[in-house]
């Protein structure tokens, strides 16, 4: 049977880590969304050097482990644990977000761009007013999945003394010599973040489907 005193007696410590996990995830979420959108636009812009830059970023980052990226900032650049963790998460997740957004943009029929451009709208106006609003509907489900992955991946902070849930759970575990129960409660804290996220994505998906 699960020992609930572990949870109640160490609640403050759990909460401390929970807060850091939420803050680091939120920062990485916003930053990776912005960076990912930028990279996606790089990859499809009618300008070869930008395409190349975007492709190199995505292919490079997607194909190395998140842990290595975080270590790079932690050991290499001597960032503090939480900062190295959040930065690594941002850089890593942005590559996946860029791919999701790019796929969404490419799924909008080419004729939409042509119709808008032939009416005298600029490339930027067309992107903003015609292409991106259509792409976003296609992008929301994969984007939501990336955000859920991001929250789970934030446990990497524990490895670099990132003061998150995982880090604090390790503390509790080494103090109480309990392992299983400690980490079950950690799982519940993560679920309290990922389940609402997942429901939110489902809801948005339904609403967007209806608006069509």
């Amino acid at each position, binding site marked *: 049977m699960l020992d609930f005193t572990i949870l109640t007696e160490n609640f403050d410590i759990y909460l401390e880590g929970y807060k850091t996990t939420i803050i680091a995830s939120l920062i990485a979420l916003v930053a990776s969304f912005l960076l990912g959108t930028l990279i996606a636009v790089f990859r499809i812009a009618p300008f070869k050097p930008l395409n190349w830059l975007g492709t190199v970023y995505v292919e490079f980052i997607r194909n190395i482990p998140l842990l290595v990226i975080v270590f790079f900032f932690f050991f290499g650049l001597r960032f503090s644990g939480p900062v190295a963790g959040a930065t690594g998460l941002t850089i890593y997740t942005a590559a996946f977000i860029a791919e999701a957004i790019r796929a969404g943009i490419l799924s909008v029929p080419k*004729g939409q761009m*042509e119709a808008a*451009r*032939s*009416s*005298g*709208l600029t490339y930027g106006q067309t992107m903003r007013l015609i292409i991106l609003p259509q792409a976003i509907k296609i992008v929301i489900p994969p984007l939501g999945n990336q955000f859920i992955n991001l929250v789970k991946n934030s446990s990497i902070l524990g490895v670099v003394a990132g003061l998150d849930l995982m880090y604090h759970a390790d503390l509790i575990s080494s103090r109480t010599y309990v392992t299983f129960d400690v980490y079950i409660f950690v799982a519940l804290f993560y679920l309290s973040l990922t389940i609402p996220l997942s429901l939110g994505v489902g809801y948005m998906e339904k609403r967007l489907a209806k608006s*069509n």
Partner: protein
Amino acid sequence: MIEFKGVNKYYGDFHVLKDINLTINQGEVVVVIGPSGSGKSTMLRCINHLETITNGELTVHNISVADKKTDINKLRRNIGMVFQHFYLYPHKTVLENITLAPIKVLGKSEKEAKETALHYLQKVGIAEKAQSYPSQLSGGQQQRVAIARGLAMSPEIMLFDEPTSALDPEMIGEVLDVMKALAKEGMTMVVVTHEMGFAKEVADRIVFMDEGRILEEATPAEFYANPREERAKLFLSRILNH
């Protein structure tokens, strides 16, 4: 108004447009016909620079289309284009589809743009659909909206690329009627179509293309009575017996 002088276009090694010479005057209706792959769409799309010519000279209002110094967005304001597959913006209402460019490109007020839009919607016969989304309209209605969208910019030239070939037969007439009315009002039109009835009724000239070349240019009467080119004869017999 539109002038091609020795225009060539290549896709890589593929020579799509071969030495095109064609002058289209203000108020003229020119119908372009020819077999699939002969370069009709490509020629049309060069006029508003959706495609780039490789060499030669192409001018609209004496302004060179391919010149880097030409403000292409400004040129395009004056040239409406209607596509085979309409390409209405699915996330915008019919009214928003039509007012978007007048507001964003011409800087019209929302109120003014809306009045203009309603005027043209009336003209194409679907004013009651202003608040609908494109997906709620039939193909014929969508294409009429697309025409209204083009007209709302008050262009001097309208380009049509097979505007009825994606439509069910019973809807072709309603779109052709709108186009005929437009032609009779003196709009300069370049129309890629195989609708021979339309060509006979309103075209000033028929241009026959094959394998990237203009093989024949004639009035509809001349063209139908006696196409000079063997290829044109063959093509005509095929589409007329179809």
